[in-house]
């Protein structure tokens, strides 16, 4: 697949603060691409630069190999779905959708056909003559999408489009978005701070933090092999430990030492030497928990702990397990009928274990 949008060393300052610093990545044609990060990470600024509302201090944006950095907003073949919809209050749903087409002086016949098609796509045909204040939030959202899509943009930009909706509606809209993406087949760029939203629909995700690109990859890559401590923390839950490399066993594994915690064997893809400062991250669902000691296996880290808290969630239970004053979070999936099994309860002594491949190591600065 060819690259459709390319951000090339984008840097942007607002007064003294640096909103984006040297951000470079590319987005492929037809991709559902998410830009994910906490608030203030620069993700919306990046989207506004692509839409043409802001211009970068340095760097260039390419769309289909054409430099659009200095192209004004109204000349760019991209359209935006705004967070607060930004529907024109004085126009009906139909007139809102027709706005871009009327600006382009397309024939009224064609406009009517395009509107009908869009109203069909968003299932809003019965509401075509209503005004924006007469429809619900979810409906406004769909109209905003239709108003953008009707212009047949090369890329659709979605700026936190679901933030203003309640949870149930958000989940439904997310599925709708996915369906619409499949139907129209153009590139979607979806800006969000909600990792679940991004994981659910994206082909690939770029993670931004403090105006810097942290990682770019498929949802699985990002979740399973985070490249930084920030990404590991931001995406999903994880147990974090600060430790020191005690022994590099071979090319792939090393033994880590922790204050007040048993040594841990872990896979590494960084060049490590003895004495390096590292972070270790282990996802709660990767840790197995049982009342009986598990079979000896040199690849497993195995230790004894006490249950400190237990939250039953139906499909899984979340445990807090204390090992040497340190609390680990552990998730146990209930794949079998739970009532037949020996229950793990509060203050029980348990064994926890995880495979050396299921932890990941990041290097750590001395002061961190």
């Amino acid at each position, binding site marked *: 697949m060819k690259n459709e949008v390319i951000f090339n060393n984008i840097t942007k300052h607002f007064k003294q603060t640096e909103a984006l610093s040297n951000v470079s990545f590319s987005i492929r044609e037809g991709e559902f691409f998410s830009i994910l990060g906490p608030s203030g990470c620069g993700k919306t600024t990046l989207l506004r630069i692509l*839409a*043409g*509302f802001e211009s970068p201090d340095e760097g260039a944006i390419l769309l289909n190999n054409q430099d659009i950095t200095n192209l*004004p*907003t*109204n000349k760019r073949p991209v*359209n*935006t779905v*705004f967070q*607060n919809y*930004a*529907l*024109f*209050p*004085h126009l009906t749903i139909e007139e809102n959708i027709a*706005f*871009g087409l009327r*600006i*382009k002086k397309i024939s009224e016949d064609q406009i009517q056909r395009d509107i009908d098609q869009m109203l069909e796509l968003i299932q809003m045909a019965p509401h075509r003559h209503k*005004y924006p*204040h*007469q429809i619900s939030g979810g409906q406004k959202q769909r109209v905003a999408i239709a*108003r*953008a899509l009707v*212009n047949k943009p090369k890329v659709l930009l979605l700026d936190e489009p679901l933030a203003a909706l309640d949870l149930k509606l958000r989940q439904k809209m997310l599925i709708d978005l996915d369906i619409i993406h499949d139907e129209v087949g153009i590139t979607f760029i979806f800006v969000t701070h909600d990792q679940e939203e991004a994981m659910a629909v994206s082909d690939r995700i770029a993670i931004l933090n403090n105006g810097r690109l942290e990682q770019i990859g498929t949802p699985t890559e990002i979740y399973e092999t985070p490249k930084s401590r920030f990404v590991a923390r931001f995406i999903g839950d994880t147990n974090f430990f600060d430790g020191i490399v005690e022994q590099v066993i071979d090319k792939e594994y090393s033994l880590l030492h922790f204050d007040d915690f048993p040594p841990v064997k872990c896979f590494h893809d960084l060049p490590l030497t003895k004495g390096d400062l590292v972070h270790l991250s282990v996802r709660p669902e990767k840790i197995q928990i049982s009342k009986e000691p598990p079979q000896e296996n040199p690849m497993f880290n195995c230790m004894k702990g006490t249950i400190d808290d237990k939250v039953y969630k139906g499909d899984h239970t979340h445990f807090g397990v204390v090992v040497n004053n340190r609390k680990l979070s552990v998730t146990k999936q209930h794949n079998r009928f739970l009532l037949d099994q020996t229950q793990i309860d509060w203050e029980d002594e348990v064994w926890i274990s995880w495979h050396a491949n299921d932890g990941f190591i990041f290097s750590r600065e001395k002061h961190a």
Partner: protein
Amino acid sequence: MPRKKLKETLMSLPSFVWLTAFFLLPFIIICVYAFKPADIYGTVLKGWTLSTLNSLGNVYFYKLLWRSLWMSIFSTLVCLVLAVPMGYQMATSSPKWRNLMLMFIIIPFWSSFLIRIFAWKTILHPEGLFHQACVFIGLISQSTPLLYTNFAVVIVMVYTFIPFALLPIYTSAVKFDFQLIEAAMDLGASRIRAITKVFIPGIKKGILTAALMVFIPAIGTYVIPDLVGGVNSDMIGNKIAQKTFAERNIPEASAISMILTLIILIPLGILVLYSRKGRNLEIRSRE
């Protein structure tokens, strides 16, 4: 909801009393005088007559009425054309600049209205700053008069009434969601088109209020044509003043005032009907 109705009635009572005492009653008195006969010394006589109103049906009065209308409508339009971009500019500025600009609009009110008009006499005078500047950039020749013309009346009216246009427009513009401009530009509109197609409809109520706020005092003005206007710049207000003070003909002055009030009430009525329509729409949406 009779209780709520009662409360609403009580709440609107003060303004109702005020309007009755200072608008409705005087207006009725004027209307009554308009149908009273008078002798040549200005004494109002008993009985009723239509002759005062009939006597207004002459070419001179029609001309006066027409001139008052076009001069005030034209001044209103100029005020709106200037105030809309100014309001846009103010609303998009930082709060610091906004307040500074508001100050500049309000400061002239601290000095007397008459003094400011006399100042314009100096400015528009053939030796004055404005006249000289116009000659310098080649707009007019030295012999073209500016002072004592209809042009002078319009320019001073615009100067005097523009704050009344700017303030309501600014108030609407501040409440306007400027992301809509971005949305319009995103959909392919140039900035100018985004402003005409989205901003202006968005502040429509402010523009209508501004139009009334300028038109109503403009059509009744008499000091401005009196001081900077020429022999053919008289407006209705001058006629009323002349009938009242010079000729002491109260019935004739009342008849003209009545017509003036009716002229003002027509656009006001349209606005009220219009805004009621808008309010019904809102109420329906809330249900």
